[in-house]
């Protein structure tokens, strides 16, 4: 398990938990990124804090990469998106777009993603979130097994 980075993972995870805690105790809002992103669309109201949050999200990632460039992708190394299995003959842009459509549609009708259900929902002991997390982790693991793109 040479690629495992448990220490930085736990520090980063604690920061993410703290981010959720701040938004919950300060504003009473769930830090679910798909929800914050999705509710920028009409008929959205109270858009201002969502825009501020998303801009800060980008600035936080960029700033920490400047401070600690050695941690990996985005700091010292370039980022890259996954490519589809070569033997399937699917162009990479089609694969990327399809993935984005599925994630946008799925998180909207399922009311959450890794942050909203995975972090905030499980912390709230929500049965709905537990069901959602069990399903999306299982399907994602199954997908990677079938595609073998790692």
């Amino acid at each position: 398990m040479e690629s495992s980075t448990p220490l930085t993972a736990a520090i980063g995870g604690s920061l993410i938990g703290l981010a959720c805690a701040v938004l919950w105790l300060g504003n009473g809002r769930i830090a679910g990124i798909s929800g914050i992103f999705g509710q920028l669309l009409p008929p959205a109201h109270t858009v201002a804090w969502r825009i501020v949050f998303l801009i800060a999200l980008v600035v936080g990632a960029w700033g920490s990469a400047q401070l600690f460039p050695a941690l990996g992708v985005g700091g010292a190394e370039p980022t890259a998106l996954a490519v589809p299995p070569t033997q399937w003959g699917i162009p990479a842009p089609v694969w990327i777009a399809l993935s984005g459509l599925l994630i946008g549609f799925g998180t909207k009708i399922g009311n959450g993603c890794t942050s909203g259900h995975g972090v905030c929902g499980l912390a709230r002991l929500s049965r709905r979130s537990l069901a959602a997390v069990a399903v999306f982790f299982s399907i994602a693991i199954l997908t990677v097994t079938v595609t073998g793109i790692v």
Partner: protein
Amino acid sequence: MARTHAPQLAVAAVSGLLFGAGLYVSQMVDPLKVLRFLDFTAIPSGGWDPSLAFVIVPAIVVMFVAVRLGRRRTAPLFDTEFHEPEYRRIDKRLLGGAALFGLGWGMSGICPGPAIALLAFPPDGLWLFLIALLVGTFAGSRIVPSGHLKRQADAQ
């Protein structure tokens, strides 16, 4: 809620900064690292990367404490109520949505948080992904009822 007050915007900014920093420090902005977690076929060979578990567990624990602290109060610091999710049922929409999200996540290794955070150092194809994410979200919003009252009625 009528309008957003300055303290709420400050809270949103602090929370967003912490979230973005957490995604970078934990390397969850790297789609390939996320895929190496999801690749359980690598467990027997020892090539599996369990890091994502080390990210999500402390995150849940910290938020769990915050939720407990919140339960002692009637309202958050800068709003009149905790905006608890209104849905209660485990239904086809929840499970179907989670399944479609899982499929897309397994294809790309990107979930919505890292997708936005990656704008800090955008890889090729990120804008296409984000546009598709927005289009997919918009299509989904045609199905889920919009508006607080409709959602509440639907949640009964």
